[in-house]
């Protein structure tokens, strides 16, 4: 089949959606299809532009294509009679972020009208779609809540899971991620203050701003944890990440309300249990408390979980194995993805 993967484009920006589109493209070709990535410009500032680009998407014609797989608003408005969504997210500013400081659209009569346009557009045009898949249940739940549409969760696999390995369950817990307020590395540090075992914490990632790094370092200093918490404040290579994963006792990952998060998946491929908080969002779809990781209510409970794993090797191994098994149990695979999207 000739498949067009339709995504938004913000010139010069390359993020998770772009990566996913590229992975999907490569995998589709691997599985014998012809694929092309179609990018439709999207500019949402000033907010009036949002409607311009909704109209633009509606007027674009994608010819010579058997199927469209669309990923985001408003690219998913591109008309095609054989269209399927693999939804990363709707325009959250109009939905769950409306009424919060992140709504991005002003509360003026014009802003309210713009929001209405987005809601109406989704309600009407998403009905043209044959099937809706989402990258996580959270996204699907929101879609159902706000647009009344049913969907199925189709978790994105890693592009290449081969290199992920478990070499041993060492004495440190690994927290890989950009360092910023949303990822909440500082909570992991606070938890370490309650830890009684000899467990260490290794934090690795590019600080979003120098302030973010500064804040984290001062929390470590405040609690006198310099010898127990190691920070690698830069982007680490794939090999470094694989290495650090391979030797970790477990992975600590504490983002606030994330949509998905590959970190959990990477940890599972390396057979490591994952420790997270109850409001982490995406990771909760994969982590089952006590089975392949721990979902904690606060830093003290997190510390207890760290101690438990540090002191009980058998437990760690059992959870680690279950973590690896989860991937197959949930069929998080390109086989499944390609099958669903090309059916």
């Amino acid at each position, binding site marked *: 089949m000739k498949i067009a993967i339709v995504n938004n484009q913000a*010139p010069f920006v390359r993020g998770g959606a772009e990566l996913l589109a590229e992975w999907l493209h490569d995998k589709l070709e691997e599985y014998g299809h012809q694929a092309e990535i179609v990018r439709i*410009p999207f500019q949402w500032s000033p907010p009036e532009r949002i409607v311009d680009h909704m109209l633009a998407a509606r*007027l*674009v*014609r994608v*010819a010579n294509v058997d199927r469209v797989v669309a990923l985001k608003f408003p690219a998913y408005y591109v008309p095609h009679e054989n269209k399927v969504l693999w939804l990363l997210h709707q325009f959250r500013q109009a939905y769950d972020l409306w009424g919060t400081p992140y709504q991005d659209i002003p509360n003026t009569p014009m802003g309210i009208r713009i929001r209405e346009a987005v809601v109406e557009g989704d309600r009407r045009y998403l009905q043209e779609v044959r099937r809706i898949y989402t990258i996580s249940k959270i996204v699907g739940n929101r879609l159902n809540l706000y647009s009344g549409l049913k969907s199925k969760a189709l978790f994105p696999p890693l592009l290449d899971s081969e290199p992920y390995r478990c070499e041993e369950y060492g004495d440190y817990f690994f927290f890989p991620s950009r360092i910023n307020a949303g990822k909440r590395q500082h909570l992991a540090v606070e938890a370490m203050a309650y830890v009684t075992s000899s467990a260490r914490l290794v934090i690795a990632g590019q600080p979003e701003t120098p302030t973010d790094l500064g804040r984290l370092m001062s929390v470590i200093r405040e609690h006198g944890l310099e010898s127990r918490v190691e920070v690698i404040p830069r982007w680490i290579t794939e090999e470094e990440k694989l290495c650090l994963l391979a030797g970790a006792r477990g992975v600590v990952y504490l983002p606030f309300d994330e949509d998905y998060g590959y970190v959990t998946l990477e940890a599972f491929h390396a057979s490591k249990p994952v420790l997270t908080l109850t409001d982490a969002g995406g990771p909760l779809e994969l982590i089952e408390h006590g089975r392949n990781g721990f979902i904690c209510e606060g830093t003290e409970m997190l510390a207890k979980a760290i101690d438990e794993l540090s002191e009980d090797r058998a437990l760690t191994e059992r959870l680690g194995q279950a973590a690896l098994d989860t991937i197959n149990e949930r069929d998080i695979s390109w086989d499944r993805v390609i099958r669903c999207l090309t059916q």
Partner: protein
Amino acid sequence: MRVLVASTYVPFVEGGGRMIVRDLVRAVRERGHEVDTIEIPFHSAWNTMLEQMLAIRMMDVSEAADVLVAIRTPSYLLRHPNKRLWFIHHHRGAYDLWGTSYQDIPSTPEGLATREAIVAADNLYLREAQRIFTNSQIVADRLREFNDLEGEVLYPPLGDPERFVSRPAEGYVFYPCRITGHKRQQLAIEAAAHLTTDVRVVIAGAPDTPQQLGPLQELVTRQRLQDRVQLIPRWISEEEKAELISRSIGVLYIPFLEDSYGYVTLEAFHAHKPVITCSDSGGTMEIVEDGKNGLIVAPEPIALAAAIDRLRSDLQAAAAMGERAHETLLGKDISWDRVVTSLLG
């Protein structure tokens, strides 16, 4: 500088338009700029064109980059304060092909009205550009004739010219090109029947359709040219092509009325080889000069055979023409340096 290269395309159709975008992006990036592309799918069905054109007008990239270079029609509809066009061709069905069998808009009142609107939009929005370049003089002439606009000729260079080297000539002339009617491989085969020296003709390229190939093979058999003509009826790799050009006496490029001189001509010139072309081939006239860096002949088998024989009979003269062919490239400065400087300057 932040540069956006914009163009339109048809998904899953490879064509010159897409290659030039890729080559330009690479050239701009190599010269230290940040580049991204905006490639908008565009369907040339006449009754959807107005809507698609409006779609492009609605897309806002005006603050995304310092310069926008728009290539294939109608990507120049994108709004940007610093827009440059590297104009390859119009939607020709509405322009120079209107009134011919290639007209792709019906001559009904509806079709006429649509054509008017397309031309009106072009006239308006082409003028938004700060500078307009075209890929050939022919296209610049059309721009003047139909839209009353002046375009500067900016010849597209090869993507990887270093590949095309020169070696001592062996006894053949070479015609590498996809096999289809207006590329006139048939003419080359007919010429082969009139050759008087021992020169051979090597033709390589993927036929557009199987129907294009059959008659050529029959012609070779019928005229008993199996020893004269080598037909390689498939797509050949860049390496194979460069290899075959490098050892040829010269290269044939004899299409019917093309807008631009064609990449083949450039490849030959880079490889220090003369080019034989026809007086009605179109764009090749802009860089091939008869007797200097190649030969221009009437599109007839005997004249073409004579030209091929001429190269074969005096290999030194042919080699000298090849040297001058290479100098032509330098003289006309067909280079990415020139392209990037012009487009971003």
